[in-house]
Every structure is written in structure tokens, then in C-alpha cells.
């Protein structure tokens, strides 16, 4: 991998004062362990994720990166036989605590999936779904939310004349941006993205990447990706997962130009994975 190119692409990460450090983190993960039945999938994860940044999680297949991101909005609970220990604080509250309402959490933390998964409804209804389930019924407000979300996901111009048409008529890339728009419609604080471009062609991928760059001004984004160049292009910080552990976590420029751990270096230089 061309290290000098990566350096020039990435941005300077501001150093913040310690007094503001609490506000800066959206997630603080402490000693997180996770088991699928008897398989130990996540081992002592300690990871603090920053506000208004793009955090990339990279690593080979089966390293636990998808498992980790799904723990952040507790979607992992849909898998039978999952057990966790440790703590994940979201804005100061432990989300693994059973008293934390999962609906409440997911209202704050949106998610975009690997495969575009629009509902078999119209484009309008896809976006309005989230606000509607949270009790927003005013047609005018819904109209505004739909337009704002679609504009936010840079797809408004492509679909504004066909809002009543079925979302399945859109191309794969458009569907994924629609799913991002659907996620924006509930105005979340954090957006989790689980390999959002792995099912897309290069041009659609580029569009989604540009979109992520814009979105980070308003949202904190955590993205799992298979694609190291993508992590280097769009993220501010990168965590490298291997066999359920965090091997290295630092700002993207450093991890790609000057990794401390031998395994990280091997992975990003393409020697395995």
C-alpha cells in the first residue's frame, strides 16, 4: 500500500484537552467480552469512540468487527445464545444494562446494513417509517423529514419525482443511500455502518463514501469495512481487530503509515487477510 498517498489523503486529528474528554466520547467500551454459545467472539475489548468522527473498524473475516458494531445498538441480541460481560457506555450510560430500553438506544443509534434492505414500500414510506413509529403523524412534518433526509443522503434529486414508487425499483447504490436516508430520518446521534459498500459497484461506493464525509459533521459514524483503502480514505480513527481482540487503535494516518504492532503492519500491507 502506498503510504505517502494515504498520508496526504488523511486529515489532522485535533488534540483535545483532557477536561473535555468526557464529552468527546460517544461510546466507552470497558472489558467487553462476548460469547456465541461457547465461542469466545470478543475478548476484553477496550475502545473509546469519538464524537463527530468517522471510526473505521477493520480486520479479516471472523475477527469480530461486525459482532462489535452490532453490540453497539444491541442488534446482536437477535442472535440466539449470545452472552456478554463488561460495559459499553453510550453517553455515560451502560447500554448492556437490562434496564436500558433497546428501543430508546436504537432511536439514538441508527444502523446501515451490509446489503441494502429497503422495505417493499414506496420511497416516501421507507423514509417516513422511522418518524411514524416514533409517533410523528403530521403530514407536513413528515413531508419535510422525507425531503431533508433524502437531501441529507444525496439522493433527493434522483428520486424527488418518484417518491410514490416502490423502493425496489431503485439501483443497488440508490437503495443503500435510501437506507442511509431512512436512518437519518429519525435524527440519530450515531450511525453504525456494517460494510455499507460491500454490495455496491465502485461508483456507488464513491458516492456513499462522499456522503459519509459530509455526514460526520452532524453525526458520529462507526463503520466496519473489509476495504482498507476505504478505511484510509474516509476515517479519522481506525481500530484493527484480530481474532476477537483489538490489536491497535489510533488515528488513521498513524495506523496506516506507522503501525506499532507487527500484525497490523502485516494486515495493512496485504500479507494476510
Amino acid at each position: 500500500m502506498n503510504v505517502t498517498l494515504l498520508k496526504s489523503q488523511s486529515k489532522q486529528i485535533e488534540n483535545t484537552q483532557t477536561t473535555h474528554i468526557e464529552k468527546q466520547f460517544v461510546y466507552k467500551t470497558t472489558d467487553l467480552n462476548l460469547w456465541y454459545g461457547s465461542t469466545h467472539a470478543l475478548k476484553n475489548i477496550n475502545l473509546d469512540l469519538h464524537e463527530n468522527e468517522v471510526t473505521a473498524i477493520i480486520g479479516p473475516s471472523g475477527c469480530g468487527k461486525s459482532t462489535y458494531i452490532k453490540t453497539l445498538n444491541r442488534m446482536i441480541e437477535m442472535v440466539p445464545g449470545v452472552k456478554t460481560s463488561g460495559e459499553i457506555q453510550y453517553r455515560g450510560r451502560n447500554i448492556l444494562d437490562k434496564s436500558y430500553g433497546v428501543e430508546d438506544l436504537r432511536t439514538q443509534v441508527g444502523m446501515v446494513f451490509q446489503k441494502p434492505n429497503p422495505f417493499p414500500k414506496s420511497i416516501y414510506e421507507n423514509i417516513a417509517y422511522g418518524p411514524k413509529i416514533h409517533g410523528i403523524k403530521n403530514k407536513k412534518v413528515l413531508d419535510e423529514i422525507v425531503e431533508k433526509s433524502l437531501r441529507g443522503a444525496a439522493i433527493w434529486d434522483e428520486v424527488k419525482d418518484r417518491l410514490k414508487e416502490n423502493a425496489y425499483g431503485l439501483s443497488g447504490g440508490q437503495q443503500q443511500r435510501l437506507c442511509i436516508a431512512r436512518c437519518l430520518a429519525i435524527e440519530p446521534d450515531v450511525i453504525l455502518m456494517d460494510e455499507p459498500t460491500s454490495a455496491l459497484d465502485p461508483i456507488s461506493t464513491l458516492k456513499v463514501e462522499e456522503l459519509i464525509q459530509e455526514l460526520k459533521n452532524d453525526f458520529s459514524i462507526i463503520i466496519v469495512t473489509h476495504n482498507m483503502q476505504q478505511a484510509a480514505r474516509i476515517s479519522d480513527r481506525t481500530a484493527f481487530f484480530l481474532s476477537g481482540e483489538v490489536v491497535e487503535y489510533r488515528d488513521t494516518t498513524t495506523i496506516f503509515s506507522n503501525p506499532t504492532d507487527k500484525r497490523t503492519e502485516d494486515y495493512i500491507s496485504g500479507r494476510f487477510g
Partner: protein
Amino acid sequence: MSKLVDKEIVAKKMPSRIIRNQIFKGLFFLSTLFGLLVLGVLFYRIITQGIGYIDLDFFQNFASRRPENAGIKAAFIGTIWLMVVVAPVSLILGVGTAIYLEEYAKKNKFTSFIKLNISNLAGVPSIVFGLLGLTIFVRAMALERSVLAAGLTMSLLVLPVIIVASQEAIRSVPKELREASFAMGATKWQTVLKVVLPASIPGILTGGILALSRAIGETAPLIVIGIPMFVAFLPKTIMDTFTVLPMQIYNWTSRPQAEFQDLAAAGILVMLVLLIVMNSIAVFIRNHFQKRY
């Protein structure tokens, strides 16, 4: 490189392989033909026998000892009354059970044991359900030989079919759609109501209608609970007694006079048309509302 596939053997085997293929094609065709022929003969007999009796009077007259005055008014209206009870009861209970089993119940051994038993219940002879209805509804709940007792018994009979069909329809909704809904903070009920049910309703309705058409044709459970075969009045409430088409047909076929046999054929024709209409609706729903994922 030496060749392991002997071209001579291949060439020698070729004609017999092809002939065998032809033989099996013929055998399968004959099997199909057998069923079709029997069905054709049945249709022919029923139509030639019964068509002459089908007129307005046939629908407007009650059962009678004189064949020329006999009609299916009580039985036809009775069948509709029965459906009025069976359709809501079995659909609400059946779809509710299917939703619970697929969406809410924990996936453990106990749940799969229950699911297995429900599938088995679909194969239990209908007369057994009749005995169950006699014990519970007619005697224990003292509903007598009413539309309600018969309707509840029939609902029990078709419930397993509706549950299994609904479960399959619900299971065929991709899990990605559920995930999308849950990830936005929707509750399970909101997800079921707004995502799962709209996507599975064609399958549920198809299964439901097919189950109802089974209920229309069933006689055994009604005989067991003592529904009369000869009725010369219409039920006024669901607590009144009544009769249904297959009971009326059964009654006529057991009479010695030839005219009653023809009346039975006419009754069968009416029932067949009713069933064909219902099954066509099921097919229409399946084709029209089917969504691609």
C-alpha cells in the same frame, strides 16, 4: 494419458438409457392421466345428473320429503352461517398463534416440540375433532347443536392448517426487513404490524381460504356433534341449530329414491362451484399480491 472412460461402453449403453427415459416419461404421464380420467368421469356424472335440478327454486326451497319440492336453502344459508363463525375465529387464533410462535417465542426445544405437534394435528382425522367438539362445546360448555358449537369445532379442525400456512408465510419474510425496522427503534409489535404482516398477508390469506374451503366440505365432525340433516328453517342466532351443504348431500345420497340421488348431484355441483370460487380467490391473491424481495 490413458483414457478411463471406454467409448465403446458409452456407445453401447446409449440406446437403453434413452429408452428407459421414454418409459418413465410414459409411466408418469399415465399416473397423471389416471387421476384426470377419474375426475373427468366424476364431473361428467355429477353434471349430467344434477344440472337439471339447479334453478332458482333449488336455492329457495327447504329440504322436503317430495324431491320436486326439495331445495338447499337451509343448507346453503347454514354453510354461510358456519363460515361467519369459522372464518374470524380460526383466522384470529391461527394467525395470532403463528405470530407468537415465529416472532415472540424463544427458539428452544419446547417451541419446536409445539410446532411439530401443530403440524401433526393438521393430519388428525376430522372425526377426532368432532369428538373433541362434542365433549367441550356441546356438552361441557352446553352450547348444544348450535351454529356456535359447530363453528368452534370446525375452527379447531382448520386451525393447524392456518397456523402452519401462516408460519410459513411469516418465515418467508426476509430477516433483513425485520432488522431494518428494529434498528430504527421499532418495537416487536410495530415491526410485526407494519413490516412482517404486510409482506406475509398473501400467504396467510391463501392458506386461510384453503383451510376454509376444507371446513365447507367437512361432514364427519358435524355428524359427531349431532348437527341435524333435515332442517326446514333458518337459524336466527348463532345459538340455533342448522345444517350445511355436505350434510344435506349426505342425507340425500342415503335416500332410496333416484330423484334424491340427482338432488345430491345438484348439491355437489353447488358445493364444487363454491369451492372453485374460493380456491380461485386464493390463487388470485397469491399471484396478485406476491411481492419480490
